[in-house]
């Protein structure tokens, strides 16, 4: 039943975009209705899949490697639910964000529908060939969406880097699938034979999976494509990519892990180190950004890092023989997949709304938008509190589970360096959380509070109803998971049991019950205290901001987002040296001068692009082969043939 509903939902999503291609002005208006119908159908399927048993749908339609099979278990349904939610929400948002009359409106709708439908196909593929094929379509649809504004060099570059990185990952995944086939002799996802983890092939699967799925998920240092692509795409596509698409890397990793009967230490330690590095450096780079969408993109790296930390705790503790800790790690990672999907999509949609209104992505050119766009500000604030992992919203719940996992290993009788690594997650997560808080105070404060820093920002207007309506379900879901985590606990428990089939389930509801009570207490007390303060401050007079004697406060005198972040980024200067263009020594009567600084990406700008330029230079030496004349090509083919013939004859 659930597989059927999910398949219908996916087909409706794919079909929604095709309405935009039909002739006639009315047909494109059907798009949001079709995609919302698909989204609701799919969500119903996911709900059945999460509460009931596994189900599958086999179509008599041969694809290479077997039949076309959609299978929904708790894990697939768990990952597919945010995808369906985002599809519907994004479809509604796009209706006003990229209205039907605008240029490339059909382009955006067609590829968004295909992206959503094929995402779900990846997550529910019952066979590895379908898994890879659907993923390839996802990549291509996402490529076209990132390149929507392809007049701009920035968008083109981001799209090409995304395509190249995705295909490097795809190569690794081809190898993973081939190795799985070699071990199981089937193209279906079936458990590997006992002891597979110890074989060379098993180890190769682990290494290639970390590399391939790591690129797809945007784990540092494989994140090169992520910031550019997220920044260039339309807001609802960024929300989809950050909220759902990168999670498929996590899904792939978890799915492959669940096939092994034992998990090696080395795999867990690698995951933990990658997770800690991604989370701390991801947020540090986010702090250094001046572009609102790039800032959010680096936060995706941070949150993927937190998820990978959870998985790392799970794998390492399982290898250690601490099943409770392992279960908490896996459960925290999976819940964070949901949570990050919700609050990051909310943040991207509200940021898109602010960008739409103020006409710039530069944080330091916005400001004061909360007065003009109160609903957008409230949505962004909700997302910001959630992403910082603060109670009473959802981010806190998943981080709480990962913290418990980390603390849980403190009682381990064997205190070797692997358990030290698990323990290290707690302080690392604390540092990450505090830096994320700094970053979102910076973003929220500079964009929505204070005075407008540019004329466009001072003329901003609240977004249309459709865009605000799209943010509402995401904000409500953030609040619901935060205030009532015990309702989610059984679903999470089922998904975790599929992800880690060897672990005895832990009763998550009992662990989360006090968190729920605490969250409700925090929400209530804050509301009461706010009402009290507002009442106490009734007898008030208005005056301009006190600026220590200056007659009038001017917008340019406000503390900028860059200055706010600089005191933190200074601490991380060892990891991310900034490129600064500053005026040298000023003459006695200084003229107008400018100051500019930015932090280049360490992997892409400092390592990968120089290396690729070197490779291009080397390739220049054999460029004479590429003459463009047909005779030469025929001759070289002929010569190669002769050489091969001679070689085989010898």
């Amino acid at each position, binding site marked *: 039943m659930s597989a059927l509903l999910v398949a219908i939902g996916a087909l409706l999503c794919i079909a929604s975009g095709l309405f935009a291609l039909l002739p006639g002005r009315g047909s494109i208006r059907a798009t949001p209705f079709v995609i919302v119908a698909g989204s609701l159908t799919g969500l119903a399927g996911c709900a059945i899949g999460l509460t009931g048993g596994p189900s599958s749908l086999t179509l008599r339609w041969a694809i290479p490697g077997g039949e076309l099979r959609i299978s929904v278990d708790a894990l697939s349904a768990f990952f597919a639910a945010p995808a369906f939610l985002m599809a519907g929400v994004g479809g509604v948002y796009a209706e006003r964000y990229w209205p039907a009359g605008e240029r490339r409106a059909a382009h955006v709708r067609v590829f968004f529908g295909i992206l959503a439908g094929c995402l779900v196909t990846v997550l529910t593929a019952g066979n590895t060939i379908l898994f890879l094929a659907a993923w390839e379509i996802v990549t291509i649809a996402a490529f076209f969406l990132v390149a929507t504004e392809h007049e701009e060099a920035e968008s083109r570059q981001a799209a090409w880097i995304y395509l190249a990185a995705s295909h490097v990952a795809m190569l690794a995944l081809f190898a993973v699938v081939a190795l799985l086939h070699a071990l199981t002799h089937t193209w279906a996802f079936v458990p590997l034979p006992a002891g597979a983890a110890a074989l060379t092939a098993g180890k190769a699967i682990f290494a290639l999976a970390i590399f391939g799925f790591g690129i797809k998920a945007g784990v540092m240092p494989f994140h090169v494509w992520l910031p550019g692509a997220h920044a260039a795409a339309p807001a609802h596509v960024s929300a989809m990519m950050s909220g759902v698409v990168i999670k498929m890397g996590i899904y792939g990793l978890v799915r492959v892990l669940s096939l092994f009967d034992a998990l090696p230490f080395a795999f867990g330690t690698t995951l933990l180190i990658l997770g800690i590095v991604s989370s701390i450096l991801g947020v540090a780079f986010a702090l250094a950004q001046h572009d609102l969408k790039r800032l959010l993109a680096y936060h995706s790296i941070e949150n993927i890092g937190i998820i990978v930390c959870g998985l790392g705790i799970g794998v390492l503790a399982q290898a250690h023989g601490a099943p409770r800790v392992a279960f908490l790690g896996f459960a925290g990672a999976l819940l964070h997949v949901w949570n990050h999907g919700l609050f990051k999509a909310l943040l991207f949609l509200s940021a898109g709304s602010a960008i739409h209104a103020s006409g710039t992505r530069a944080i330091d050119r916005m400001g004061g938008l909360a007065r003009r766009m109160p609903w957008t500000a409230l949505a962004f604030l909700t997302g910001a509190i959630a992403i910082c992992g603060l109670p009473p919203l959802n981010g806190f719940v998943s981080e*709480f589970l990962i913290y418990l996992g980390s603390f849980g290993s403190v009682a381990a009788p064997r205190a070797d360096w692997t358990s030290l690594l698990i323990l290290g997650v707690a302080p690392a997560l604390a540092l990450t959380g505090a830096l994320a808080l700094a970053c979102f105070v910076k973003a929220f404060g500079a964009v929505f509070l204070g005075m407008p820093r540019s004329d466009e920002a001072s003329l901003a207007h609240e977004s249309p109803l459709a865009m605000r309506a799209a943010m509402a379900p995401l904000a409500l879901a953030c609040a619901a998971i935060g205030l009532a985590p015990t309702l989610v606990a059984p679903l999470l428990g089922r998904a975790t049991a599929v992800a880690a089939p060897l672990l005895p389930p832990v009763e998550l509801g009992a662990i989360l019950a006090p968190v729920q009570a605490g969250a409700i207490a925090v929400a209530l007390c804050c509301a009461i205290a706010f009402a009290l303060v507002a009442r106490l401050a009734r007898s*008030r007079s208005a005056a301009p901001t006190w*600026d220590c004697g200056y007659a009038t406060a001017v917008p340019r005198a406000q503390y900028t987002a860059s200055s706010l972040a600089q005191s933190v980024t200074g601490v991380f200067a060892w990891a991310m040296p900034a490129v600064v263009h500053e005026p040298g020594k000023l003459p006695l009567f200084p003229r107008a001068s400018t100051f500019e600084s930015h932090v280049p990406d360490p992997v892409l700008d400092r390592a990968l692009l120089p290396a690729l330029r070197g490779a291009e230079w080397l390739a220049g030496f054999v460029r004479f082969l590429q003459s463009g004349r047909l005779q030469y090509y025929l001759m070289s083919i002929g010569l190669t043939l002769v050489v091969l013939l001679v070689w085989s004859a010898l």
Partner: protein
Amino acid sequence: MRALAQILLVVVASPFLLGVINRTKAIMAGRTGQPLLQAYYDIAKSLRKGSVISTTTTWIFLVGPAVAIVAPLLASLMLPLAGASAPLSFTGDIIVFVYLFALARFCTTAAALDTGSAFEGMGAARELTFAALAEPALFFGFLALARVSGGLSLSSFMTMDGRHWQSASAALVLVIASWFLVLLAENSRVPFDDPNTHLELTMIHEVMVLDHSGPAFGLILWGAAMKLFVYCALIAGVILPATGSILVDLPAFLGAILAIGVVIGLVESGMARLRLVRVPQLLVTASLIAGFAVVLVLR
């Protein structure tokens, strides 16, 4: 009932701690000093006044003081101020404890930015930076105490029966030293910040609330006093062994909190504030000290 008594204790007693610190500083400087109850007078005066609210601000401006008073109140419910366990105690309450103060930090710094004042922005930047560096130290300390006490809640950390001083004294000394630095940083005391300074460019916490006035400012003062009290109580609970008898524990506990107040006063009398660029180094040191404690208990 106990929860109510506990909240009342924190609400009523916390400004007195400020009086103790100030009196210590006055005695060290050879002054008579302000009355012991000065903080109460200040809060009462602010609460009676009307407020001046900047035309730039939004509702966020008043969320700051509201959450700044809620966070220490709820956090105090997790402290076993006298007795075996706190009114609100569960596995992992330490995480809620830290994140409550983080929520307050989010709201107070956002309220500071709401005014559009450059000085308040500066204060917010410093507050955010130093708190981010102080947080790992707290968690390293939690890890060490979790190992020593075998539990994962503030109640288990703060009601150990004294044997822990024999088995893990070195680690405990390190944790307490590290947390004392965190206390000074989180509550804007010397050497991280000088609560008596009147130069906006150098302040941290005080400069963030330049624009708050009247009742909102009074609540901020009160919230800050409660936060200091809660942090002192945290350290006092780790130092003192619990006997189980409230007649012994409660006076000892309150005495220890006042003693920590005296120590803060002595530190403030004895040294000047650090240059701002030195502050991160001291906070990283605090994390390293607590990290050593973890290594010691795990060996």
